């Protein structure tokens, strides 16, 4: 996996660059996952806001709902939910596709015809994920905060201006930085795990199925672990900007 990642990283900067494949993958990752992250963001935001609103109302602090939502969503929930949803949908798809191509010797055929499968198959998927995971995370963030707004105004009877002012107050550099750094790192995790698992899948259909399951499992767990360490390290480093 280490050497695979090294060679793949080198391939990112080598020619030829497959533009059409990259755009196709960006469409697959971005447009294909859009509906999923819209639903996830909206309902997760509403659920979270509901739980917070009830508790904050009891404490007489419901005006802080926007602040809590902004911090929780932008720093943690948005990047994590978006990445886990994308890991489930895209990681499984990439591993299954590459695994099937390997077991049917399509990757060997590519090599036989002088095409480097790393550049043709892996690099476009990495670039697509690097671009689209942050975009989808922002969509998740927006929808989750919007879900919080709906619950805040309809359930907690909070004035819209108070909610938005509180949200705006916490959209500071530090939170936005963490919120955008995480999806970049998560996209690399998803891309490397899913392509590695696809390229090393063995044992026919059963092997491809196993590789696909492992791909989702490893991506998801790695995302959760990496998320903790990013929060821990970045929080300590840029505490003053949070």
């Amino acid at each position, binding site marked *: 996996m280490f050497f695979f990642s090294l060679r793949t990283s080198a391939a990112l900067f080598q020619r030829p660059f497959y533009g059409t494949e990259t755009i196709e993958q960006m469409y697959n990752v971005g447009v294909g996952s859009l509906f999923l992250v819209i639903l996830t963001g909206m309902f997760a935001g509403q659920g979270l806001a509901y739980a917070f609103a009830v508790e904050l109302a009891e404490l007489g602090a419901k005006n802080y709902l926007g602040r809590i939502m902004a911090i929780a969503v932008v720093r943690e929930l948005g990047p994590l939910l978006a990445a886990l949803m994308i890991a489930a949908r895209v990681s499984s798809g990439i591993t299954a596709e590459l695994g099937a191509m390997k077991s049917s*010797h399509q990757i060997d055929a590519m090599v036989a015809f002088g095409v480097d499968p790393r550049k043709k198959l892996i690099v476009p998927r990495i670039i697509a994920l690097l671009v689209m995971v942050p975009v989808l995370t922002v969509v998740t963030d927006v929808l989750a905060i919007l879900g919080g707004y709906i619950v805040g105004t309809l359930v907690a009877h909070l004035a819209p201006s108070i909610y938005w002012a509180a949200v705006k107050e916490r959209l500071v550099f530090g939170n936005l930085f963490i919120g955008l750094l995480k999806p970049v790192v998560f996209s690399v995790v998803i891309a490397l795990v899913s392509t590695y698992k696809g390229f090393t899948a063995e044992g026919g259909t059963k092997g491809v199925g196993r590789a696909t399951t492992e791909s989702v499992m490893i991506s998801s767990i790695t995302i959760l672990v990496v998320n903790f360490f990013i929060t821990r390290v970045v929080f300590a480093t840029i505490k003053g900007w949070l």
Partner: protein
Amino acid sequence: MIALRSVHFAYADRPILRDVSFSLAEGESMVILGPSGSGKSTILRLILGLECPQRGDVIIDGESICRMKESRKIDVRKKIGMVFQAGALFDSLTVGENVAYYLLEHTRLPWDEVDRRAREMLGFVGLDADEIIDKLPEELSGGMQRRVAIGRALLSTNPRIMLYDEPTTGLDPRSTEQVLKLIQRLNADKGTASVVVTHEIADALAVADRFVLISAGEVAFDGTFEALRDSADPRVLDFLAPFRESFAEVSRKRFM
């Protein structure tokens, strides 16, 4: 042209080939016979440089393919056309895009020219281009897929050597006959050297002058049809035993 010199190869700890040596001259047609799992397909992968032996060497036109740089390997592979087991067509591309794969990847020919060459090649391998060029491989029969794969290998680089990995496995008798005739025609008309891997003795007899039998990872036999027929090697007799009737029949036809 191709030479395997004392090749030893293993997947992880599982030995596949032991001290395998043979060579193939320009224009020669060879069949590698052997039971399933004997390492026949591995030999083709070694020739193509997809795998490298742990010991020994694979020489293509005087150069070791495993010691070449990747760019040189690409040049050498241009001399070699490979038809993978079950065709290995790219299932997300149309038949036309499959046949013209090499042209689309490595040349800047206008689409009209690419399309013309793809149609010409499909015609050469006995397929109706108008009918199938826009179809996906999964919409074709097994025999048609194999012929598209042969067309793809030919159109790519105009190869001097063709490698066929189990070209008729899983095909009905009619499709098998069509594929074998195509291989025979290529050998005769274009003078390409060929290595066919198969465990079907009838197919082997139809397309080759020379036979190599791999048994338990070793070369158990290397010679002509007559030598194969007359061999008293127990490994040869053991392999041919299930095919005795068809072998005798093909043998009669061959000498009629």
